[in-house]
C-alpha cells in the first residue's frame, strides 16, 4: 500500500477519533465547529448567519443556496465519479464574510488548509469554511504527502481567528463539517474506498496520466467509479428503477410483467429460461 493510501485508509477507519481531535484543537484556538447534515442545512445556516450579522447578500437566499450546493455537492458527486475542483470562495459585503471550501483539515493542529485562495489583504471579518467530514488528515506533516498531489499551487492555512498581535486572519472562524451521505458511504464496504479521494484530479480524462491509471490513494478508478457512474443515475431515481418500483407495488401489473418476461425471454440475460408457470399461477391452480 502506498503512503497516501495508507494514511487515507487509516483516517477513514478512525474518523470519529480524528474529527473529535480536530474539533477540540480548533475550538481551543477560538474557532467554532458546526456539524450539518447536507447542503440544505448549510444554506439554512448561512442564511441565518447573514441575517443575524446584517450582511447583505446579492441574489438573496437563493444565491446562498446555490453556493452551498457548490461547496457541498454531497456524496452524489463521488458516486458519479466526479472530482470537481474546489469551488471558488464567495465573498460578501466587501470582506464582511467569506465562504470557502477546505482542501484538508488537520486534526493535530486544528488547522484548515485552503487551496486556490488568493491570500493578500487582512482577510475577511468572518470566515466560514465548509468541508466534508472525510477531509481530515491526522497530522500536519501528512500535508507533505498530500499537498504535492493537488493541482493547485496556492495554499492558505487557518488555525483559528486572528490573535492579539497577528497581522491578518479573520475575526471569526467557523468550520462547517458536513456529512452529506458520507457516513452511509463509509458503512458500505464496496464504496467506502471512494472517501479516500482527495480530489487530485489524476483520474479525470484529459489530464496527464489521466484515465484512471494511477490513483494516488489506491481507488480502483477504472472499475469502481465506472461502475458507480453507471449506477449513479439510479441513485437519484433513474427511470428504470422508478418503473421497477412502480410495478413492484402493483401485484397485478407485476404478474403481467412476469408473463411478458416469459413471452419475450432473451438468452443473453444469462439465466435459464423460466418455466411456463410462475409460482403464483401454480399455487392458484393447485388450490382450485
Amino acid at each position, binding site marked *: 500500500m502506498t503512503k497516501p493510501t495508507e494514511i487515507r485508509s487509516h483516517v477513514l477507519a478512525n474518523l470519529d477519533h480524528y474529527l473529535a481531535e480536530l474539533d477540540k484543537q480548533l475550538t481551543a484556538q477560538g474557532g467554532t465547529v458546526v456539524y450539518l447534515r447536507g447542503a440544505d442545512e448549510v444554506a439554512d445556516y448561512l442564511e441565518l448567519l447573514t441575517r443575524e450579522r446584517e450582511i447583505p447578500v446579492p441574489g438573496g437566499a437563493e444565491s446562498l443556496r446555490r453556493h452551498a450546493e457548490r461547496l457541498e455537492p454531497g456524496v452524489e458527486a463521488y*458516486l458519479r465519479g466526479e472530482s470537481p475542483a474546489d469551488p471558488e470562495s464567495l465573498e460578501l459585503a466587501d470582506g464582511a464574510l467569506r465562504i470557502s471550501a477546505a482542501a484538508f483539515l488537520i486534526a493535530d493542529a486544528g488547522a484548515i488548509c485552503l487551496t486556490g485562495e488568493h491570500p493578500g489583504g487582512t482577510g475577511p471579518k468572518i470566515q466560514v469554511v465548509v468541508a466534508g467530514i472525510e477531509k481530515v488528515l491526522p497530522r500536519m506533516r501528512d500535508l507533505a504527502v498530500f499537498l504535492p498531489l493537488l493541482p493547485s499551487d496556492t495554499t492558505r492555512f487557518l488555525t483559528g481567528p486572528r490573535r492579539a498581535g497577528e497581522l491578518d486572519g479573520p475575526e471569526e472562524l467557523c468550520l462547517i463539517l458536513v456529512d452529506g451521505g458520507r457516513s452511509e458511504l463509509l458503512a458500505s464496504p*464496496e464504496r467506502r474506498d471512494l472517501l479516500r479521494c482527495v480530489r487530485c484530479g489524476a483520474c479525470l480524462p484529459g489530464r496527464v496520466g489521466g484515465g484512471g491509471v494511477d490513483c494516488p490513494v489506491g481507488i480502483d478508478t477504472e472499475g469502481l467509479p465506472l*461502475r*458507480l457512474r453507471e*449506477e*449513479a443515475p*439510479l*441513485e437519484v*431515481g*433513474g427511470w428504470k*428503477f*422508478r418503473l*421497477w*418500483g412502480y*410495478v*413492484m*407495488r402493483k*401485484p397485478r401489473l*407485476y404478474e403481467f410483467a*412476469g408473463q411478458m*418476461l416469459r413471452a419475450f425471454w432473451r438468452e443473453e440475460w*444469462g*439465466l*435459464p429460461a*423460466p*418455466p411456463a*408457470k*410462475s*409460482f*403464483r*399461477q*401454480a*399455487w*392458484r391452480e*393447485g388450490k382450485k
Partner: protein
Amino acid sequence: MTKRVSLFVTCVVDQLLPSAGLAMAEVLARAGYEVEFRPAQTCCGRPAYEAGCREQAQLVGEHFLRSFADAEYVVTPSTACATMLRKRLPEFGGLAARELAGRVWEFSRFLVEVARVEDVGARFEHAAVVQEAEGLNCGPRLLAHVKGLEQVSVSDWAGSGKLWGRGEPVSPALVNRIGASGASHVIGMEAERLLLLRRALEKAGHAIETVHLAEVLASR
C-alpha cells in the same frame, strides 16, 4: 392449534424457480404448519437497494410491509432477501416494520430455530455438491439428516456469481471444479445463485442438475 406461516417466495423464485417455492410449502406443511400465500407480495426491494437506489427500495419495502403486516411468520427461501428485510425494514418504517422484520425467517433457519426440526424425513439418493451458503443458513444441518444423500465437496466457492447490484457471472474455474467432482446434482440455498450456476453448467455442457435445498428436503 395449527400455527400459520406466510410464504414470501421472492420475485426470483416466483418467476424463475417456482419448484423451490412449492417444495418449501410442502416441507412446512409436513412440519405441521398451515401455509398461506399472499398474492399481494412481489419483491423485498433488494435489486434496487443493491444498485444504490434506496428510495425505490424503500417504496417496495413499504409494499412488503402492507402485504405482510399481520402475518405471524414470514418464511422465505432466500437468505439474502431475509437479511434485506430484517435489516432494512426497520429503517424504512415505524414500529410495525420493526416488529415484522423480526418475524421474517429464512426457510432453513425457520425449520431449525422455530419449528425445531432437523430431520424432515427426506430421501434424496444422489451424489451432490452443496453450494456454499452465504450468511447464516441452516441448510447443512438439515441436509445431514437426508437419507441417501452423498455429499461431494468442492473447494473454493469464490466467483459463484451475483445477480443484483453489479452482477457477476459464475467463474469458469468453479464450473469446471463442479463438473469434475463426480456429483450428479448441485444443491443450492439461494435461488439466484443456483440459477446462475444452472445456466453456467448448461453452457459448459455439464449434465449436472441443480436443485434448491427445499426441493431436496421435500423429496422422499
